[in-house]
């Protein structure tokens, strides 16, 4: 067993997810199944191998810093679950 229920609880907290006891049990089994499969990567000698963060070309994509129109505020706020006076409304964060 690579992953215990306690690990699942910890990772769920990091990922901002919550589960029932039954779900935790199932996710523990699923994650162990997948991670056991992934263990095969340990067979591969990667000493002195560089990492690849992209598929093919990774290069800087620079452009001139030009002022352009951005999205219209109202059109974006239409998708907000709650808004007021042109702002997204959220629960109180600071006491």
């Amino acid at each position: 067993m690579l992953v215990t229920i306690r690990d699942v609880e910890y990772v769920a907290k990091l990922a901002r997810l919550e589960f029932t006891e039954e779900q935790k049990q199932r996710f523990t089994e699923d994650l162990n199944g997948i991670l056991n499969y992934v263990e095969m990567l340990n067979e591969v000698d990667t000493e002195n191998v560089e990492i690849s963060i992209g598929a093919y070309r990774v290069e800087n994509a620079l452009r001139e810093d030009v002022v352009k129109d951005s999205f219209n505020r109202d059109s974006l706020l239409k998708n907000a679950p709650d808004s007021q006076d042109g702002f997204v409304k959220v629960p109180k964060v600071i006491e």
Partner: protein
Amino acid sequence: MHTKTLHEIRELINKGEVSCVELTKNTLDRISSVDDKIGAYLQIDEEGALNKAREVDEKIRRGEEVSFLAGIPMAIKDNICVEGLKTTCASKMLQNFVSPYDAHVTKLLKQNDAVILGKLNMDEFAMGSSSENSAFKKVRNPYDLERVPGGSSGGSAAAVAAGEAYYTLGSDTGGSIRQPASLCGVVGLKPTYGRISRYGLVAFASSLDQIGPFTKDVEDCAHVLKAIAGYDEMDSTSAKREVEDYTKYLNQDIKGLRIGIPKECFAEGLNEDVRREIENAIEVLRRLGAEIKEISLPMSKYALAVYYILASSEASSNLARFDGIRYGYRAKDFEDVVDLYVKSRSQGFGDEVKRRIMLGTYALSAGYYDAYYKKALKVRTLIINEYKRAFEDVDVILTPTSPTVAFKIGEKSNNPLEMYLSDIYTVPINIAGVPAISIPAGFVGGLPVGMQLVGNYFDEGTLIKVGHAFERETEFSKVRPSI
């Protein structure tokens, strides 16, 4: 009408035998009569489609020259933005999200006067291989309604197969275009990473995602690819490379072309009937003068493991944005802001999405980062190098697209790992970033079998060339389901 290809329809329009409005109405009728059974569409924009069709008819009446795609009905996977239409990703999380802008591919389609019929069903957030993970409804395979269409772009594949659109767009992170194309008997292309802009595609795993077309045949594929490829300043990973006229690769000879057959893709795990069909396809290409060479890609057996670490890690980061604050689902009852995040995400995401977020978060967490994520990035380098080396000796690599034909709905939904194995031949391609196409190449028990052709970086042209040569020699792309 609905059984015709895009290029056949273009000809009918050009000859004045059908108007774009008639064609659009006809396709909308087709959708009304079969989509209750198929479940390909999540949203239909009848008014927008008919308006566009009228506009193109008017242009033609005025004698204006129109694009190859002009006035022909098509549809788009529901993770690609079309301004004013919903983009739900088949998730409760985005059930009410209306896109405030067009994806780059949408912009290009609109410039080509495409008639956009609506948005297509999929696995939630493009995570899955069967389209059973849609939060709204399942997609069914037009060849057998008890079977899956594949996934995650199941709606895009099924819509083309069932004649509910003349072509569609999907996205492919580990096989999500090619595997459903294979299972539904249509052509699906995943271009080279960077060939098509990802701007406006809801991100799953940014270093692997690519948009691509579904069509009835390879000839249609060349036309659609030409229209949607190209550099876009809004996607810093899109390639500053000229777009070729892919139609120039149609009707070409493949004599002397070197095709590599990786022996690892014909080993354990491949269904025997599928193997036989693919071997027959290889013989067709040999007869056409291609030089068939056995090759070895020993690293490919690690690709699926690399994929599930990298794709899940990238997904856990990309999907962090869905927090119930600026857009998307917000839970009704919560105690404080953290509780709002937790409840909105837990109620808004389905199980497979949560499973991948959990796996990715685990792989990126302190203490495991080196063992999983960094290790996977290193093995990715070895896989990339292996493909680069292979393309020094061959022009194209040929494999089955999927180890089996379409499986039964529910057959693999309780075993994530078994489901993941249906992407075993497609996943290495995304890891390497090379282009690949799935082409109808046979039938087993009345169900389609797809052959995958893999090309070198930015060599989509050779895939079109070989695919079209095969298509001219065989009848598989002409078969339509009886629905």
